[in-house]
């Protein structure tokens, strides 16, 4: 015979009555207090245990409730399915091992989401977006950039023709069957640079054109075409949205953490994309029987122009030149000669 003491509230008044709850062997539960005697089947009673340290409550079918002062009766309810789910939750919320389990589960599912889930989702979504819509997006972005970062190009017509010729060299070749569009711009803020916008809109700055030889410019264009071939701009957009959603799951807590970790993850995605595009650059040079060194030399020239950074790579959107060169050479070795 198990028995507990507690306070009985009948649900009709706020009056509390001190009671004894006795579980008898025959599956009945008897409740006794001042002017009070109730008898109920154990199976009809419901146990509720709020999270954290708080008294468990025993509910009668008619709405009466006992706030139990001790845990003596709890084993009687241990094998009910509702109690079992609550128990599992409480184990994770209370036990030290539960804390570790929750941490591991959280880290594992976050990592899975960020490393596998989001990229898969982004690949699926960007494959489903029709080229016309993507191109529209690209021109919208370009129009926005024209208002802020970019000015009209000042290159002489002959140079422009030369660049369009270079574009033709990468244009019709597989694997990139999408048509590319070359846009020349001047930019005091971006300096020597090239961008790939959604829908195969490539932007090359005057500074870069003045800096590079034909082979080097071919490599840069091929790098940007590689971004387009893998739909990197669109994928980045989708992954970014997904990341924002994942960060939203954390609620109000950890806003500072969210911003920082989102940037770090975004940078990691971007570095992976750069390496993927680099492979296309050296592969294109190989296809036209040009030395792959042209790509590495333009990378070095750009670094000299901007000044090398000492920041660790996790803070950067592009891998270091040493890493890019090493990875690109490794990629070349795996290509058919």
């Amino acid at each position, binding site marked *: 015979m198990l028995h507990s003491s507690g*306070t009985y*509230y*009948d*649900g*009709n*008044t*706020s*009056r*509390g009555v001190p009671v004894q709850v006795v579980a008898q062997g025959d599956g009945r539960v008897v409740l006794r207090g001042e002017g009070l005697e109730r008898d109920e089947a154990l199976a009809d009673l419901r146990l*509720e245990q*709020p*999270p*954290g*340290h*708080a*008294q468990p*409550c025993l509910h009668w079918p008619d*709405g*009466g*409730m006992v*706030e139990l002062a001790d845990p003596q009766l709890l084993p009687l309810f241990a094998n009910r399915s509702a109690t079992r789910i609550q128990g599992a*939750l409480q184990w*994770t*919320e*209370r036990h030290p091992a*539960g*804390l570790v389990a*929750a*941490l591991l*589960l*959280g880290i*594992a*599912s*976050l990592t899975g*989401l960020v490393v596998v889930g989001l990229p898969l989702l982004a690949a699926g979504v960007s494959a489903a977006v029709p080229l016309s819509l993507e191109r529209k997006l690209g021109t919208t972005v370009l129009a926005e950039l024209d208002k802020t970062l970019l000015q009209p190009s000042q290159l002489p017509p002959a140079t422009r023709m030369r660049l369009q010729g270079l574009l033709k060299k990468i244009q019709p070749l597989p694997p990139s069957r999408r048509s590319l569009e070359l846009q020349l711009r001047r930019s005091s803020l971006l300096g020597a640079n090239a961008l790939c916008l959604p829908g195969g809109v490539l932007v090359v700055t005057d500074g870069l054109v003045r800096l590079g030889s034909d082979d080097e410019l071919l490599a840069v264009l091929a790098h940007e075409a590689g971004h387009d071939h893998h739909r990197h701009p669109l994928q980045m957009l989708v992954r970014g949205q997904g990341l924002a959603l*994942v960060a939203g*799951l*954390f609620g*109000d*807590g*950890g*806003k*500072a*953490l*969210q911003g*920082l970790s989102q940037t770090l993850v975004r940078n990691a995605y971007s570095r992976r994309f750069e390496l993927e595009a680099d492979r296309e650059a050296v592969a294109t040079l190989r296809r036209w029987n040009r030395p792959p060194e042209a790509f590495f030399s333009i990378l070095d020239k750009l670094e000299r122009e901007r000044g090398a950074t000492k920041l660790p790579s996790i803070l950067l959107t592009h891998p270091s030149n040493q890493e890019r060169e090493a990875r690109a050479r490794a990629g070349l070795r795996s290509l058919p000669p």
Partner: protein
Amino acid sequence: MAAPHDGHPAGEGTTSTGESDDPWRDLQSTPLSFSGRTGEYFQIWLANLALVVATCGLYTPWARVRSRQYFFAQTRLGGTGFEYRVNPRALLVGWFVIGIGLSLIGTFSDLLASALASAFLPMGRREWLAILLSLTLGLVLQWLILSWLLVQSMRYNASRTLFRNLHFGFGSQPEQRSLWREMLRLIALAVLAIPSFGLLWPYVAWRWRRFQIRHRRFGATPFTFTATPADYRRLHLRALPLLLLSLGSPAPAIGLLVAYGDQQAWLAPLVLLLLLGIMMAFLFGVVWSCWLEAAAARLTWRSIHLGPLRFHCTWTAAELLALRLTNNAVLLFSLGLAWPWVRIRSSRYRLERILISPAGALEGFLGGEREQVSALAEGAFSLEDSLAGVIDISF
């Protein structure tokens, strides 16, 4: 033991006024206590977070309910905790239904606007009018839906809150429409308060507080609210100097910049002065909002009557300011990980400075009709939390 109270508030003549009510020391009063522990809540928070991430957000209703249940159970009055009796599964269903409904409406009005726009592409005056009309329609639709959801959410949360096994309640089934109408008016008033440069704001704050309190009941006993619009006006008027100080802080720097900004030598020190002014404005703004929050809470609590029960709140602006500043600093330096500590500590401060008297009267309340309120609205948002975050009366 006190005799049971009938469902009507006590006599009207007992309104207590004045900030330093000494009678409270003699009355047999009892404070709300808060027994939450940071370590315990940290683990609940972390387990919730892990499960929410692992289930791609499906666990969110459970997480929200469990964390609310924790805070309710740890909030104790006369040794008894509060209860939040909610089935998270019902919230999840509500989430989906309302989420899909709202996004359908959103898509529909977007489509309508873009169809109108493309149908009359070279924009004339009439076409602009058409787009304007459809946008207005969308806003009105949102106004209607959100205010209904807000009322339902308040009703649901109140009906699921219990103390000593008695339900709280908010409005009744037949009152639903009038509650909705009142909410529509409240939102419209709040929008109108913007062009009034805040002149309307004390009145809106008073209306909102009154709406929240006078429709609430514990068991069969209704809450009453005795504050007048004049009380709120006085409150905001007394806070006005701080607000003016905040708004005026950058003014000298701006004036000097306009006068001497074209002289190179003056530019750097003036910009520095401007930055200083902006910082001062921010600081005074925080002080202003803390002062207002504390004073409004004291006024509100002493204007609430529940049967024979009276309430007394002793929040002070200085303590709220210290609380807010340290909380933000700790949150920033812990990269947000100190969130559970911040929540526990804020709840403790806010709750333990509320006194209730006479303590003996807690026993004498009668239960009212129990209502079945749909979980739909509460599932959609915790609107009450976000909109009424200003006040902590949703016990």
